[in-house]
């Protein structure tokens, strides 16, 4: 196994460098496990031989506040090429909103900070569809939730990157700069039939 992820801040991640020709349709590519050091979460050198990508995991940061925004970018692009639409319920109010022409898919998920009880982490499933296609802009969908026994967030998000390049790098910037120990995000590849 060779590392295919590059994680800023000393976090550990390892992936499979040599992909087999197995008929397995859902394969683990790399896993990020926080060591509590600050820095972005970066999956890099993503192989292009899958149809879709999925990131699954749990996240909590050292940011102040309760349910904080997290940001996602592709291929290091920081220009205003992203957009987001979202449905969100907090148990009291439901809301829908959109943000366009932004420099990341900001607020693509929410994760607890220091204002939330200990041991509580947000869960998220992020689908990145047709990520290697060079004829389409890229669309993601996110299913995210966190609950603190009396407060919480449940969020459905779609995101857009207005770029036809294949996605080779995914960067998640934790609010406050640090994903705390216990946070882990795993990248999977999903294959279509040949």
């Amino acid at each position, binding site marked *: 196994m060779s590392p295919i992820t590059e994680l800023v801040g000393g976090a550990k991640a390892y992936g499979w460098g040599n992909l087999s020709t197995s008929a397995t349709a859902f394969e683990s590519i790399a896993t990020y496990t926080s060591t509590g050091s600050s820095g972005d979460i970066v999956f890099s050198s993503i192989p292009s031989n899958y149809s879709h990508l999925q990131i699954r995991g749990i996240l909590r940061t050292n940011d102040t506040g309760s349910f904080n925004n997290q940001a996602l970018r592709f291929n290091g692009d920081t220009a205003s090429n992203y957009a987001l639409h979202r449905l969100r319920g907090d148990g009291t109010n439901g809301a829908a909103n959109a943000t366009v022409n932004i420099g990341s898919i900001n607020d693509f998920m929410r994760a607890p900070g220091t204002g939330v009880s200990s041991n509580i982490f947000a*869960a998220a499933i992020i689908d990145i569809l047709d990520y290697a296609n060079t004829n389409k802009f890229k669309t993601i969908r996110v299913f995210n939730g966190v609950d603190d026994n009396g407060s919480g967030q449940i969020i459905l998000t779609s995101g857009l990157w207005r770029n036809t390049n294949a996605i080779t790098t995914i960067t998640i910037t934790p609010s406050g700069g640090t994903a705390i120990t216990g946070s882990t995000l795993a990248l999977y590849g999903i294959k279509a039939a040949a």
Partner: protein
Amino acid sequence: MPATYEPIATTTLGSNSTNVTFSSIPQTYTDLVVVINAYCVSATAMDIAWRANSDSANNYSGTRFMSDSSPYTDRSSNTNAGNAVAIFNDWSVTRAYFMNYSNTTTYKTALLRSDAKGYAVYSGVTMWRSTSAISSLEFIQPFGQSGQYASGSTFTLYGIKAA
């Protein structure tokens, strides 16, 4: 490349039931997924409630966002089971995602989605305030409700393993 998304167990109900249990869940995966294809009998609707490790104390809570014809959100706290989505008198598909279920340092979060044909769509998050690894999962009739999972309903447990 080892398989990373594997079926662990399937239960198909031979009669109406208030309870389905997956026990002795292996600890070798990262996440668990339960796909439930069910409909409700003995009532017009029922919540899908779950418990881990037979814990019936008030250690669960949840937040949900749903829509039948208009959006609605609510939450629960200090309940004796996690419940955030529902089924009705027609076939519904529910997916429950138990994230990082085997770690022993965090409380356990489950994301749930339910599509109830002709009735509503649900999304929800439930929290089990325990750092114990999940070794069994039980889907039950919620307290105060009379619905049952109909005969023919299927519950399939999958494991997803990260590198």
